């Protein structure tokens, strides 16, 4: 399990857990929940994830508080 921040462009990852409940609730609303698979389409400090037809940008600090399994 690594921080989402470790993901590289083009790579996919499955969300595993969150640093705390607040961050979990915050992300769950966007559909970023445990078990969700996301794909990284850009990384420039912030990371841009693609999920279905949505693109979601997540700032660097938040990326360090979401844990994933790289696929």
């Amino acid at each position, binding site marked *: 399990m690594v921080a989402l921040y470790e993901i590289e462009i083009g790579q996919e990852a499955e969300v595993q857990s969150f640093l705390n409940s607040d961050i979990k609730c915050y992300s769950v609303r966007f559909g970023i929940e445990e078990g969700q698979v996301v794909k990284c389409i850009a990384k*420039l400090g912030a990371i841009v994830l693609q999920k279905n037809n949505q693109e979601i940008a997540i700032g660097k600090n938040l990326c360090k508080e979401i844990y994933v399994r790289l696929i």
Partner: protein
Amino acid sequence: MQIKNSINDNLQSSKTLRIVLAGNPNVGKSAVFSKITGTYAEISNYSGTTLENFEVKTDIGRFVDTPGIFSLGDYNEEEIIAKQIITQADIVINVVNALSLDKDLFLTQQLIDLGLPILLVLNQMDEAEKREVNINIEKLSKELEVPVFPTVAIKSQGIQEVKDNLHNARKGRKGSYIAEMLEGKELSYKNLLENEFSTENREKLYVERRKRVNEVTNKTLITKEKSNISSTVGKALLNPVIGFSVLGVVLYILYQIVGVFIAGEVVDFLENQIIGGKYIPWITGVVNQAPMPTWLNTILVGEFGLLTMTIQYVFGLLLPLIVGFYFFMAILEDSGYLPRLAVLTDRFLSKLGLNGKAIIPIILGFGCVTMAVITTRLLGSSRERTIASTILCLTIPCSAQIGLILGILAAMGSLKLWMLYLASIVITLIFIGTVLNKILAGKATPLIIDLPPMRIPVIKNVIDKTLCKTNHFLIEATPLFFIGALIITILELTNSLKSIYNFLSPLTVSLLNLPKETANIFIMGLIRRDFSAAGLSDMIGMGGKAAILSPEQTLVILVVITLFVPCIATVIVLFKERGYKEASLIWIGSITIAFALGGILATILKILPV
């Protein structure tokens, strides 16, 4: 059904219904609102366009447009504002984006769980079709137990059906977890609503709700990732090299259109040929013939005359710049480029204690700092709002002022001056952001935004927005210009202007190395920023008068009036939004910094002339 009856009763009785539009940011709530009610509402392709509840009365009822939210919580100011009105609604028109159904339905399920009568509007169906997103509408309606209407708001498709079916709003099917949570606990919905936000229940509720929403979307949504031109362009803009090159090109086009074409040719034609060459001689003649005391004559057609200089500045100089600038901004706002710029600038802005989202108020500040100070509400914390408001008030020149600055720099034709001007402003911006980031407790809130598809701007929307903002400018600014001109004329008539020149000469002459009369520019600047730039354009000879300033002096003034106090309207909004303590600090701080920096620059330029 009970609610149906009560809504029908309401429709028949004279009690006005309150119909609230609610939904995630940028799904098209304002577009739907404006098509249903026929009133103008601001529509742009980024999250956080609408930041206040906006109510319109029609013969069907009172419609309220609300800010976009991801949940009815208290994560940020928008949620708090929207929550107040949504929980009071008779009918909620919940707008969702067909492209992001799984995200958007989270709020829908929350509204359903709260027992609000709902009408689901599935907007942006055109985009969904383009990307081959298939939604089984019937099934969706069955699953949620609320009526669902597909729409393409910008083309008015499906709007009439929504209007015709308001009375069919339904309380949908609550998640099974609600019954569990309510069981044995004697909780009412009101309690539940309050409980939502107490931390122990929230996580469980959110996770269960998300599960339920995923279940619904799995049953109703067939989609695959499909790229088209829009998504390819969108992705390319996230590449730093391409993204920043495009920014460079955008700024260059802005410079060519507003700085060279409008500030140069259009203004020259309007200000010098039409107003200066035809209107002013004519009106001066008319007024001179009418019998009146000299002082009145001076007020009307003197050097700072209400009918001469003021008209010339407002209509000959500022109006064309404003129109050009707002038109350009409206295109940018509609394109979907701004949220991508937020991603590109996130790293830099985090050094100033902000996150990438702050680029949106900063860019909008180039249009109007006053509006931008309100837009800082889309930032996550009060700390970020303080930093962003300070940066806006201090370093960001607004539309007409920028237009003039571009025009003045273009007229002087020196690349070196350009660079020096930019460097002074950017260094101040970085300096003030870094300092505030150090001294204010706390840190930047994390960035999480969704990136809308890139779009070709809708021409009608661009024109409507430009007209609306221009109109707003004329209504708000014109009286201030008249008051400003009047004050200066009175000062002149009572011979106080000379005393003020002398009084300020330690600042103007000794510190900034400028002629005394430049005090005028600062007095005008206290009233409106762009007013001072207009005064300056005269002094460098743009209005057909003789130039009295050297390039070095012009540069110093440009820097000082950019940093100098925000205009009256901004100050009023600043006091309202940030409180008197913080607002006065920003106000006094900006004057001090402006003159201090101007002094430093003047000294450097004395030693090393351009």
